[in-house]
């Protein structure tokens, strides 16, 4: 069984999370710069006396495919390194993956992760 872990984190936490994941031999990760909002609904900016609600904030999205048994370890690492305790720390989504194919060799399933 394979799982996809999608984590939306603070951009400035990326290095820390990436390095901590590498230490537990979780090397493969896809990183995207994204924008989004959560319950806080963004921040206010002020230009020439007028206030603007900037409701989409820059975040970083990590996509990691892991074997089922490693899922909790990876989530623990992300929690430990990406957490500040303030609003805007982000979220982690976990979903099942049907299959994985390594394009170079054609290997499938857990061997391809």
């Amino acid at each position, binding site marked *: 069984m394979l799982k996809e872990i999608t984590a939306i984190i603070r951009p400035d936490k990326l290095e820390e999370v990436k390095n901590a994941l590498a230490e537990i031999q979780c090397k493969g990760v896809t990183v995207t710069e994204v924008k989004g909002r959560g319950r806080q609904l963004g921040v206010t900016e002020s230009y*020439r006396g007028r206030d603007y609600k*900037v409701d989409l904030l820059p975040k970083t999205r990590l996509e990691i495919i892991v074997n089922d048994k490693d899922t909790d370890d990876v989530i623990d690492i992300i929690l430990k390194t990406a957490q500040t305790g303030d609003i805007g720390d982000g979220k982690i989504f976990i979903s099942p993956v049907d299959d994985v194919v390594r394009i170079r060799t054609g290997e499938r399933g857990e061997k391809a992760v």
Partner: protein
Amino acid sequence: MDPTALNSGDTAWMLISTALVMLMTVPGVALYYGGLVKKENVLNTLFMSLIAFAITSVIWVIYAYQLAFGTDVGGLIGNGANLFFNGITSATLAPLAPTIPITIYAAFELVFAAITVALISGAVVGRMKFKAWLLFVPLWITIVYVPISHWVWGGGWLAKLGALDFAGGTVVHLDCGIAALVLCIYLGSRKDVRLLPHNLGYSVIGAALLWFGWFGFNAGSALAANGLASSAFLATNTATAAGMISWMIIDIIKTGKPTVLGAITGAVCGLVAITPACGYVTVTGALIIGFATSFFSYYAMTWLKPRFGYDDSLDVFAVHGISGLWGALATGLFAAPFINSLGVGLFYGNPMQMVWQLIDIGTVVVWSGGWTLVLAYVLDKTIGLRVEPEEEREGLDISLHEESGYRI
């Protein structure tokens, strides 16, 4: 020293001043405006200033200089002799500044004309057709700028009357501010009227270049390397700094936080307001003019604009129109005869100066506003003034120029 022979000190200073003022448009105004727009319009915004400089440069040497600064005809216009600079040699001196060559005098006046029209672009960015801008620039210079600059600086009727405008409070700033207001009202609002700068750092660099170049603009308007130029230099810097500080104070009072955009906006307001006054007022006068001007422009931006609902994209009217207006009035108040014998203001016992200033202001408002409206109407009915809705949505860089500012 012979006042009608070439003076190498004066000439050297005017060469430098002219290059300084050129820097104000390209890239000063271009960057100042470019940073404030959304990233899909950055190239179009930069381009409007660049091309305004190029177009003005060409028509200026062909005919515009000759009409603005040629021998006066009835106080209204120059005689237009020496088209294409035919008949002018490297030894010909400027009739209105006989210690420098006519060629550098013409170039100095050229860079003023170019920045005046480039400044207008700030009010209309994000929705004006580029091709319409290409026609607007030469027409506006010819019909609006050339006569006004002749009346005030070329020996025309406003100069003879006694109106004071050392470096262009009415000729440049009120002029472009009124044109900007009329043109943006004619064009109508953008779909997205928010002012969310895509790269405020550009604007800081642009404003800094404006401040630097403005020493050429104001101190150069003495047309000589002398005490008056030095006095104008210090007055300019003083008013600019005061404008920056007072805007920051307003920001802190109004929102609790100082803003960088507020600080550079205040600095530009200070520069604009001291422009007509710099060669007439004391340092104390400059402090008051600079400190007060941010209040007027801030009010125009945050009260007048929302109240009347016009979409002056980058607040050209509030900054240049209102601070230019205040500067022109303040010149009539603060002009001190011991700084410049040509100017005696109300506070030094000459209330009539305020009348000449008001006539100058009224003339510029009517002439610039009226003709800009006519030009906008004619261009709109012939080639069209405004881009298509989908072009505006997509961003003008891609839809008008097939380029994009960023590939990151």
